């Protein structure tokens, strides 16, 4: 079923692109290859968003799998009122929120992921053109930003990530979270302010040469 036929059924008024529409139609027919393409298309954004929301790689992978399974199961209910990407974001956000609540009840903060104990990941040089000092600085900056993000309330963190990392507009974020656009703007301002407060004084600006 293509985008034109979907629209004839009153669905998919707004779809991101023809490719997405075709893919969506094939997935709704139960084509596993089409679903594999859909996962491959969106897995980077889902994995990164989940990782930044929960702060744990393995949790993020698990969460991303759950998210795609939920996408597959609820694909029949997708009405196309928002883009597929926004809809997937919404699923990831809901799952992440539930997972964090689950771990909060089980005192996740007192445990430590295995990867934090293994220095092998940090020892990898991902970019050979980058000097070891720059790589170390970048990793440290990333770790501090990630830690500061995790200290923000979940809703603020989600909005900030969708805006800054995923470049979504406030309207799209509002759709993803199911809140009003004004709420998104106010929470975004609070999130930026909170992040600035967390990181003020932490970074030492290098003197200009």
């Amino acid at each position, binding site marked *: 079923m293509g985008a034109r036929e979907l629209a004839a059924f009153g669905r998919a008024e707004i779809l991101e692109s023809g490719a997405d529409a075709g893919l969506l139609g094939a997935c709704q027919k139960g084509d*596993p290859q089409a*679903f*594999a393409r859909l*996962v*491959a298309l969106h*897995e*980077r954004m889902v*994995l*990164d968003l*989940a*990782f*930044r929301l929960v702060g744990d*790689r393995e949790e*993020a*992978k698990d969460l*991303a*799998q759950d998210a*795609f*399974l939920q996408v*597959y199961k609820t694909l029949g209910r997708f009405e196309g009122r928002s883009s597929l990407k926004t809809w997937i974001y919404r699923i990831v956000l809901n799952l992440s929120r539930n997972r964090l609540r689950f771990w909060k009840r089980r005192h996740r903060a007192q445990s430590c992921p295995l990867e934090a104990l293994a220095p092998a990941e940090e020892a990898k040089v991902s970019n050979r053109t980058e000097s070891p000092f720059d790589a170390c600085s*970048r*990793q440290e*900056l*990333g770790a*501090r*930003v*990630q830690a*500061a*993000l995790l200290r923000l309330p979940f809703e603020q963190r989600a909005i*900030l*990530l969708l805006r*800054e*990392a995923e470049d979504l507009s406030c309207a799209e974020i509002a759709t993803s979270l199911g809140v009003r656009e004004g709420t998104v703007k106010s929470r975004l*301002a609070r999130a*930026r*302010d909170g*992040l*600035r407060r*967390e*990181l*003020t*004084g*932490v*970074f030492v*600006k290098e003197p200009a040469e």
Partner: protein
Amino acid sequence: MNCDAVLLAVADRRERSLSSGLEARIDAHLAECPSCQEGEDALGLALDGIHDLPHVEGSIVSEVLARLEVETRGPGLRLLFRSGFDQRPLIAPCLLGASALLAAIVLSLTFVWRPALPSVPVLAWLDIPTVRERGVAPSDLGQAHEGNVFIETVIGPDGRVARMRVLAGNGEGARPLMAALSRDRYDPATLRGRPVAVSLFRLVSHVDVFPPES
């Protein structure tokens, strides 16, 4: 502009969503205020740092498809090879409950419903009367005609023949036989140890036999 307003507006300034006049006032404030300058630098680094956050390596396509296959697969042949208990897991509790219910009904009926039993039971062991004194003589039988006779004999509690009648057969020819049979004396039939009257039904066959002619 005070510092709080400037620090709230610097993010919008990064997005170029402020008017040029407001931007100029913020720039002027930042040039004079090292504290706000530090805050703007921190925010800039943090927002840039969000873009540089580490990524999760690897693909999850195969994992998702494997989980999808497992979660959408039906029970398949496992349905056919289940044990009896797996096929009907509730059979044991159901049977136990049904047994308990049945036992309760039977017990309650036993205690509540007690019908008046007849003083004399319908079914009882009846002792068959036996011949005590045979009244038939061979000469009586010799006078009988050839044939079959079906006879009912009523034997009284005293062991005497109270009544005799032919139900089928040649009654006239069987008269001497019946007269002889009526002289029989019986040990009477007993029910619960008491002598009672009963009917006996007998089929008597008589064949004349002649010696071969010499």
